[in-house]
């Protein structure tokens, strides 16, 4: 299976979506809507549920399965309102010392006139900066597509995990090939070079764990265990370790 096949597979509509994982992770999930500024973005599902006996805030980028669902969730591409809802719920989690779990599956942040006019760049930047100092544990899992800044905006976390056949990339291989050589036919070659698969990113030390695909129950158990470990850390140590993890990226 080539790296490009993994990208294609991660986009497949037969794949489990964030909602499937959400159901196993927090069966008692209650969705909380809205960014308290101007809207409620259906690409981002946020709310509270319990993992073990511990209340947890969960934020998920949901693509939907049927055509109707996919349209409703805007194919998992969030507007600024979605990132702001996520940040609002993370702030709420911080206040009540709840850990945050982010389930990420998006081709990227939505590209559109309204998204730009409502400050897509600022919304993502705010998430990165605020999550870096959020005084509660954050665990992010890339379930399928980890599309560039739109995925990164929910990955400023203490732990970043990936499902074994997910990808996480700075750019889609097609766009990259198009920008560099005006030739989307070279997407396969580019996918290889971008080092976007879970094993490659793990080897580079950019993600922490590779999880089995198609096993929401197993993932839920792993998350519960890890949250218990993170809960035992002093907040100052947690924040310092979080700072170091990104500080050490790449240089």
């Amino acid at each position, binding site marked *: 299976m080539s790296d490009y096949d993994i990208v294609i597979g991660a986009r497949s509509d037969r794949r489990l979506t964030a909602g499937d994982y959400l159901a196993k992770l927090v069966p008692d999930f209650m969705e909380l809507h809205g960014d308290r500024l101007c809207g409620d973005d259906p690409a981002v599902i946020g709310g509270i549920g319990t993992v073990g006996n511990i209340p947890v805030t969960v934020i998920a980028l949901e693509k939907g399965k049927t055509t109707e669902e996919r349209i409703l969730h805007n194919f998992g591409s969030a507007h600024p309102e979605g990132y702001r809802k996520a940040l609002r719920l993370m702030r709420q989690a911080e206040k009540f010392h709840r850990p945050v779990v982010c389930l990420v599956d998006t081709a990227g*942040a939505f*590209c*559109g*006139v309204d*998204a*730009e*006019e*409502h*400050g*897509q*760049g*600022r919304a*993502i*930047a*705010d998430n*990165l*900066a*605020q999550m*870096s*100092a959020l005084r509660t544990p954050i665990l992010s899992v890339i379930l399928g597509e980890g599309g*560039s*800044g739109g995925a*990164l*905006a929910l*990955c*400023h976390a203490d732990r970043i995990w990936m499902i074994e056949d997910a990808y*996480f*990339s*700075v*750019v889609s291989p097609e*766009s*990259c090939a198009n*920008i*560099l050589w005006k030739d989307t036919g070279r997407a396969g*070659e580019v996918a290889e*070079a*971008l*080092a*976007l698969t879970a094993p490659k*990113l793990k080897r*580079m030390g*950019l993600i922490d764990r590779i999880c089995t695909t198609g096993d929401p129950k197993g993932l839920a158990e792993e998350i519960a265990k890890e949250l218990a470990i993170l809960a035992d850390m002093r907040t100052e140590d947690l924040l310092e370790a*979080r*700072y170091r993890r*990104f*500080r050490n*990226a*790449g*240089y």
Partner: protein
Amino acid sequence: MEGQTGDRLSGGNVMNLKSLFMKANNAPEGSGFRLGRYIVCKGCNRRIAVARVRREFFICPSCGRYMTVRARRRILMLTDKRSFVEHDRDLTSRNVLAFPQYDEKLEAARANSRENEGVVCGTATVEGHPVCIFAMDANFMMGSMGTVVGEKITRLFEYAAGKHLPVIGVTVSGGARMQEGMLSLLQMSKVSAAVERHSAAGNLYIVLLTDPTTGGVDASFAMLGDVTLAEPGARVGFAGPRVIEKSLNQALPKGFQRAEQVLRCGFIDAIVPRKEQKTVIAKLLAWHGTP
């Protein structure tokens, strides 16, 4: 502002001035290109003497178009004469992912910009106020952010936080540098965290957005200033206009992603003409309690 100071700071000589400008076909929008002792404005196609263009802050005296300014010249325009001390000049990028043709691109970018990387960082004074300053360089792979750009800016914010200095940042960028894959995307997180620490310690960060500031830079430190200034007409946005046009299959509204419109949307504090930028920044510094 004098040319001589620029030559001294760029570590070159008068000969270097001849390569101040890149070839026209590589130039970002708004630029001019060099023809002997003249610069040809891309806006009106007039030839203007280099010395005059420099005196005029790289604004075309004929049509008023803002030309692209390289990072070092930008720092000269905003800081006091001979006050700039550069940090981390020698950091250079490596082709860590063995990405096709990246080595050649880096080499061309170094020749084109006469810089080791796409950002110049250091300390300086602005009308006597000590600051840390960084300026990105459009001549280096369109100011794209790779690991070295991220590292240099992060180091600058950490240094500034340690010394309780304000940071002035001049942005111009096409976004994250694709050739470094996820390593470059994560620079957004890394720099944003450093900006947050600098900010939490009560320090001032002023951003000056210049044409164009887009992609991963727009979605990180360009949008995290305490005060956000922009040059007139600068393109500021997350997604490229062609990407939006293509994905929506519709023409974009007039003035879309231009600084004036972005200000109306609420994401820019003030649009400041080039000749007034130093004065405005000095005023802001004075109000924020630096000596």
